């Protein structure tokens, strides 16, 4: 296939803060190079999952091969990788970066540098990328390309004199982006005659083709029928099919060094492949395997239970199917005294959790209850043993515990100055330690170390509301630190609800307990009897609220003509009750389990 010499290949990622226009730029590049006809084109064409289209965000990195006839008269092969902006999916970004030599750094010219702009630039620099800054959305009246240019230089220390001003929406400047890709980004290097060495960038399950593997060839050539070995797993396959995305899947004869494409090879399941693995020829193996990636580690765990116990097997099957294409999501069976059988699931973050839950409910028609999200604690036992705790319900006897360690993150927040006070207070309240405070033009940049368990619930929501949406946030997990953590239980009508128990820092317990009790008071409807709601540590009650008994609920007139209507109302009530969970005599609406954790202050 490579009638194009390696010097005419460019592999690049598009990175940016969330919503700065990566996917829209990808659309324009595809269009400008004739990848899709007018009729086939839709907005953010690479965001193919229903949930991506609905939320307007990219979750899964995507790749497409473009052919571009440059001003120098030569035709170039451009492999574009569109990446997600949200921090939960940073893992997708890093593996895309590993398959490229350069990045387009998109910055919304009306907003400027944001937290994920920084985070992604650093990732790109770590991957030794050449970076071309692109100032997007210059069609907006609020766009200030010159100011943002200066900001990029000042904050990131990147030369922005050649930054390309564009509007991905109108198509303005797209030709300049294409030229910059060809001229500024380096071609890949690689030895065509060396033994095959290819990076396994990603893999997923396709209903027609089975497991599809995205590869980047480093050295050598990959041909149809080749006998290959995955060096990490040791598995051996014969390549059935080989091709590229333009963006439609198009078969080719072979892939040479520097090229990006897919293969299929009778691989049974996605779990048989390891992202970051090195693919080589079985009979002529490369001596040096690639370093590989650290697998994506779930950082937030929660229980997912079917509302209707009869759906348990369906839930298991649905999770299995989702997991096929999302190895970063993990699950194992769990049982709860209150909720019956379900699964303890691990996620990359809260958005990931929300998305998986939504997909399970929508694509598989399941009604689910999600329990309080928890981070992974390391419990140091007096015996010297160390236990990983994913579920507060499994907390061992406190008498046997030496210390509890919790994960900490380093968070970078960029915000307009006027919201700084509120944000510092938020971080301080969440046990944060300030590491740095700087100004980036008119914006403040604060770096905080924070315990992850203070962040998973509603930190992001709070940040958004304090800053009216103007602050941006990014984080990486740094280390585990010992903390004075205690298990807080919630008792509803004197019965502990295991699904609501959580580990909290002792100094924060009372406040959280009070907030939870207040929230539950709002969320649990009045019953025919009074319901005490309590938060407790060990045997000690630290907060309490009471839901008073229902005082009045009766239909004044009900005659022969009213009974049908009343019955239909009763049917609705019965349906509503099905969406509740019975704890002793109290019915708790399923939304309450997550909603109870969101604090208002």
């Amino acid at each position, binding site marked *: 296939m490579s009638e194009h010499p390696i010097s005419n290949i460019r592999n690049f990622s598009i990175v940016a803060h969330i919503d700065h226009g990566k996917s829209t730029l990808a659309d324009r590049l595809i269009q400008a190079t004739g990848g899709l006809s007018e009729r086939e084109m839709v907005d953010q064409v690479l965001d193919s999952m229903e949930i991506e289209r609905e939320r307007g965000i990219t979750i899964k990195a995507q790749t497409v091969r473009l052919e571009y006839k440059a001003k120098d008269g030569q035709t170039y092969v451009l492999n574009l990788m569109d990446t997600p902006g949200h921090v939960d999916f940073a893992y997708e970004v890093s593996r895309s970066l590993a398959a490229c030599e350069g990045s387009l750094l998109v910055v919304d010219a009306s907003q400027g540098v944001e937290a994920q702009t920084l985070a992604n630039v650093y990732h790109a620099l770590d991957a030794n990328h050449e970076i071309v800054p692109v100032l997007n959305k210059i069609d907006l009246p609020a766009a200030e390309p010159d100011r943002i240019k200066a900001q990029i230089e000042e904050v990131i220390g990147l030369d922005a004199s050649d930054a390309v001003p564009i509007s991905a929406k109108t198509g303005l400047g797209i030709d300049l982006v294409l030229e910059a890709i060809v001229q500024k980004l380096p071609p890949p290097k690689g030895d065509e005659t060396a033994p095959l060495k290819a990076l396994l960038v990603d893999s997923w399950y396709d209903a027609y083709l089975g497991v599809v593997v995205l590869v980047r060839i480093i050295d050598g050539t990959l041909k149809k029928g080749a006998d290959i070995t995955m060096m990490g797993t040791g598995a051996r396959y014969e390549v059935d099919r080989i091709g590229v995305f333009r963006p439609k899947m198009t078969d080719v004869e072979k892939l040479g060094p520097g090229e990006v494409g897919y293969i299929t090879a009778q691989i049974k399941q996605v779990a048989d492949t390891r992202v970051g693995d090195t693919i080589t020829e079985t009979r002529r193996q490369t001596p040096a395997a690639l370093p590989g990636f650290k697998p994506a580690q779930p950082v937030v765990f929660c229980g997912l239970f079917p509302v209707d116990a009869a759906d348990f097997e369906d839930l298991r099957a649905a999770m299995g199917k989702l997991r096929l294409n999302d190895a970063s999501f993990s699950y194992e069976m769990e049982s709860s005294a209150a909720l019956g059988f379900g699964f303890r699931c691990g996620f990359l973050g809260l958005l990931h959790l929300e998305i998986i839950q939504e997909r399970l409910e929508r694509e598989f028609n399941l009604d689910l209850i999600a329990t309080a999200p928890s981070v992974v604690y390391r419990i140091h036992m007096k015996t010297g043993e160390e236990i990983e705790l994913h579920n507060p319900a499994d907390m061992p006897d406190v008498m046997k515990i030496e210390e509890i360690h919790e994960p900490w993150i380093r968070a970078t927040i960029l915000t307009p100055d006027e919201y700084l006070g509120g944000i510092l207070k938020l971080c301080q309240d969440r046990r944060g330690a300030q590491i740095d405070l700087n100004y980036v033009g008119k914006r403040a940049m604060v770096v905080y170390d924070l315990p992850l368990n203070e962040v998973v619930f509603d930190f992001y929501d709070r940040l958004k509301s304090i800053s009216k949406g103007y602050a941006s946030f990014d984080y990486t997990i740094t280390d585990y630190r010992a903390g004075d953590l205690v298990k807080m239980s919630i008792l509803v009508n004197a019965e502990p609800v295991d699904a609501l128990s959580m580990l909290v820092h002792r100094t924060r317990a009372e406040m959280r307990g009070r907030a939870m009790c207040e929230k539950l008071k709002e969320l649990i409807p009045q*019953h*025919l009897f009074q319901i005490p709601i309590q938060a407790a540590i060990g045997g000690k009650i630290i907060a309490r609220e009471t839901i008073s008994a229902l005082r009045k*609920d009766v*239909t004044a*007139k009900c*005659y022969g003509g009213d*009974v049908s209507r*009343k019955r239909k109302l*009763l049917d609705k009530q019965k349906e509503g009750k099905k969406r509740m969970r019975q704890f002793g005599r109290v019915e708790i609406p399923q939304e309450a389990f997550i909603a109870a954790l969101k604090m208002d202050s």
Partner: protein
Amino acid sequence: MTPMSAQLPFDAGFGVYIHWPFCASKCPYCDFNSHVRHAPVDEARYVAAFRREIAHQAELAPGRTVSTIFLGGGTPSLMRPGTVGAILDAVAANWAVAPDVEVTLEANPTSVEAARLRGYRAAGVNRVSLGVQAMNDRDLVALGRLHSAEEAMAAVKVAASVFDRYSFDLIYARPDQTPGAWAAELKEAIGHAAEHLSLYQLTIEPGTMFERLRDAGKLVVPDADAARALYETTREVCEAHGLPAYEISNHARPGAECRHNLVYWRYGEYAGVGPGAHARLATATGRLALSTELVPENWLAKVEAEGHGVTEVERLSPESQGDEFLLMGLRLVEGVDQARYEALAGRTLDPRRIDDLARERLVERTPDGKLRVTREGFPVLDAIVADLAA
């Protein structure tokens, strides 16, 4: 009259409900199927249609003996007595009528309508129910009524002189009403009542003018606690004056209950004739719920074309029958027979739920195996039913 304790568990009687859908004006709280027409209504044409619909329901439920007839509305007292007589004749032409049949007509207490009461008696009506609603003019105006308190009391007096049995309705839990003021008003009303009173808490029904006013903040009705206090007042005052509640909103001298409404609450069988009427008929294919076309003119056209105005027929599942039985039966102070619930619903009421409710003193079991709601339970009856039916 059958004493309540002697009623047979499975024979709650057969009632015929006739709906007259017209009113002189629309009251702002009312969500009944009532319509205001400016042109005079062609009563003869309606009589002919009623006749056909009665015959149609008699075909579905033949051979019954009618124990009660109720002419409701709307405002049936807008009908000429001859019209009422013709409708009653049509009932008698299609079913046997019990010698002690109760025939109630709803009337609005204006002077015009009072003047017709004698005519209704001659036509076969033996009980009237008057919509008095309030005992003072200020509240009557607020309720959008066309009559004054004095006019209403005059109508009550006429009713008392014409009929052995009469009742009237009041609406309470009106804006700003205090328990003290309501108790005084109620005592005054009882002074004019004989054997029966219907006392309804004002309900803001969806789609009514009152709903719009409330949502706009222009109408403030008592909150749950205040409404409950007014309910207690109602029970106490009526009981003290020999008119204990036998249903949530109905109070009577023992033995003087409205037998027609008891058919509903005891989940008996009833025909429903006229626009927007509902029926429950026990047929060979099961218990049917029928309802008819709501808009009077459309109903009329439908009956004339097809012989009936029925738009919906539902064969009630055991679960639905059980639900309806509880919804209706638990409204009665006498309670429900659990064995009959089991026969209808094909399942038993969960004894643990009953125990829990009994522990809260919201329901109690009677020595003869009935389940009934207590005095503390009635203000939260709907939640109790939802709990038992779940």
